[in-house]
């Protein structure tokens, strides 16, 4: 038996929060209406936070709020009230990068634990020691830190360490890129990042317009777009290094993503921690992870400095995309019928997959669809409509039905 690290998942809204916890997250992080970095992610009102905290705490899960804006003059107004309200709602910690915000939280909302955001680029043990002495409970490391460096940090300082294990990543040190500010007047450190790193740039040399030559040779323009991070194959190293929390990126991502990724990491963490000696990596875990992938995947800086293979040049390799087709509302064992809430069009004859917590999964060809009155339908074509389908294996509430995108329905007859 090994001490299990926390699995920390993103939750862009209440439904995602519940699904993340249902699919195995030990904790979720959300955004409030202010002070966050994801102005476009669904952010939580105080009432939604209360509901989320009640749901999570009833299941021994935690809720953190990201308040990692790098504030300019005046932005910090109201932060004391904000932090006090979060504390009183029962939020378990806030994730902050700005020293002024940290100070405000520690002095004005005593009792609310503070985690240092990755935005502050903590890259060494002395920095961890500094923040521990200031009263922080946890430090989220910069994505540039290697596995060996984490091992050393854990030996040097007794403070909780959280690291990213999955999701999209900045190609710069987080917080140290203002391309978006200069090129689009959108402040990357206040939630406005235009993802300028992923653009295609001209590239010159010594005053010569290399771009023209490049275009003539049909060469690739310059770009700085990183593939996504996945440490699914390396969970044992992270556990052995003593990492306290494994973080999944993606407050803007879909329910399908959150459920799939949590489900897989839950399996891997449990399998390793329960019996480290006999642990074997199951290729099905990786196969499942690819179903929620939007870009190619790699292990970031954990085992070395990423090369060109870990950047996206040219046309992206096509990764099969899966869509969230329906959520299971209930299941009738006697009839083998599942009642579903539709999320994406699906039709008779289509091959879909059902999956649920505990890494239950099976594929299914849709043979019948009926509406609530038992009338047969050819397809489920209305958002959020309730329908019933026959399933070959048992399912349960909050199982997800996914379908491969762009594959035409296979007609049975």
């Amino acid at each position, binding site marked *: 038996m090994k001490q299990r690290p926390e699995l920390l998942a993103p939750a862009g809204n209440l439904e995602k929060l519940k699904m993340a916890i249902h699919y195995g997250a030990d904790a979720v992080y959300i955004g409030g209406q202010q002070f966050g970095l994801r102005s476009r992610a669904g952010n939580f009102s105080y009432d939604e936070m209360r509901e989320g905290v009640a749901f999570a705490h009833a299941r021994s899960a935690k809720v953190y709020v990201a308040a990692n804006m*790098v*504030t*300019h*003059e*005046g*932005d910090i107004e109201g932060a004391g009230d904000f932090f006090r309200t979060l504390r009183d709602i029962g939020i378990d910690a806030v994730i902050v990068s*700005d*020293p*002024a915000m*940290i*100070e405000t939280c520690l002095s004005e909302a005593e009792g609310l634990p503070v985690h240092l955001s990755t935005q*502050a*680029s903590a*890259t*060494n*043990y*002395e*920095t*961890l*020691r*500094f*923040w521990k002495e200031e009263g922080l409970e946890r430090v989220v490391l910069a994505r540039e*830190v290697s596995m060996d*460096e984490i091992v050393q*940090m854990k030996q040097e300082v007794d403070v909780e360490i959280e690291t990213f294990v999955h999701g999209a990543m900045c*190609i*710069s*040190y987080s917080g*140290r*890129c*203002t*391309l978006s*500010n*200069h*090129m689009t*007047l*959108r*402040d990357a*450190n206040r939630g*406005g990042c235009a993802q*300028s790193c992923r*653009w*295609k*740039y*001209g*590239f*010159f*040399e*010594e*005053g010569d317009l*290399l*771009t023209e030559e490049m275009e003539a040779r049909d060469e*690739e323009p*310059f770009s*700085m777009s990183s593939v996504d991070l996945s440490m699914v194959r390396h969970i044992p190293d992270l556990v052995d290094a003593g990492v306290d929390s494994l973080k999944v990126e993606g407050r803007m991502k879909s329910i399908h993503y959150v459920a799939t990724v949590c489900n897989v990491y839950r399996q891997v963490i449990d399998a390793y921690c329960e019996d480290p000696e006999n642990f074997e990596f199951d290729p099905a875990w990786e196969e499942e992870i690819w179903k929620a992938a939007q870009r190619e995947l790699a292990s970031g800086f954990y085992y070395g*400095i990423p*090369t*060109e293979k870990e*950047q996206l*040049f040219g046309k992206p390799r096509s990764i099969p995309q899966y869509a969230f087709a329906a959520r299971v509302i209930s299941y009738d064992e006697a009839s083998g019928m599942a009642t579903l809430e539709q999320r994406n069009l699906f039709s008779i004859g289509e091959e879909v997959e059902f999956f649920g917590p505990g890494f239950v999964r099976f594929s299914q060809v849709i043979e019948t669809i009926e509406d609530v009155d038992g009338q047969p339908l050819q397809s489920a074509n209305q958002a959020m409509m309730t329908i019933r389908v026959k399933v070959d294996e048992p399912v349960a509430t909050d199982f997800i039905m996914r379908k491969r995108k762009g594959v035409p329905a296979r007609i049975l007859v």
Partner: protein
Amino acid sequence: MMMIQLVTTAQSVEQAEALIKAGTDRLYIGSSRFGLRQKGDWTIDAVREVTQLAHRYGKEVTVAVNNLMHNEHIQELPDYLQALKAIGVDDVTAGDPGAIRLIRQAKIPYWYDAQTLVTSSKQIQFWAKREAIGAVVAREVTLEELVLIQQQIGLPVEVQVYGPTCIHHSKRPLVTNYFNELGRPSEEAKQREFYMSEPADASSRYPIYEDENGTHIFSEDLTLMAQLPTLVKHGLHTWKLDGWHAGEQFVEIVQLFTIARANLLNGQFDRIEMEHRLRELQPEAFRLGTGLLLRKPEEIK
């Protein structure tokens, strides 16, 4: 008595002396091991030599210790700081909280410089309570905000009045990676500076280069020559000039700002003439601009 301090980069002991004669009050130097984007081979011996030189002239030396430090840097840092202290450098810049912890233990004064993350008076006050003697404010902070920040704090706030600023720092070797992708010899990647242009503006030029700390992208060359009276009026008295691209013209550019300072103090400042003279000295390859400095704070979302 109004004291305006000119802080300038320096690439060699020889250039440092010329810069002091041109009006520099404080030399800003460093190694790329512990500092960010330093030109020149600032070994400990060179730092000693330039510090003795500066002190003979009654001038100061600031050493950049503002790199993002990994464990290996932190392990070496105490020895480096002891060497700087023995030399008697006046102060350092630093933004990594771990480095700041060691700098305070070594009892060396420091300017808080976490680059893009220094954006408010309350942040600076946080570090002032932890013995910072001043702050280098992010170049993304507008002049209007700089004035507000300086009003709130008793410490000097450094404003960049000339030269480029870094707008992207990646630990990855992005030029090497690109050359590898193209199949070009990757040894070239670290030997030269290259330029990027953004898709919407083919005439834009963002210098990009690689060193042991990764990849750095610069803005256009900033200038606040025309706004110097505003700086003086609002007590923004620490003026930084970065000579990264200015080459041999840099000493003359510093001299021009020295003249501008003198003229401001005796009421003779002629903005149009000063801007004209700066444009004449500016290397043709680099556009002079004001970046985000003259934007209204509310324009930046």
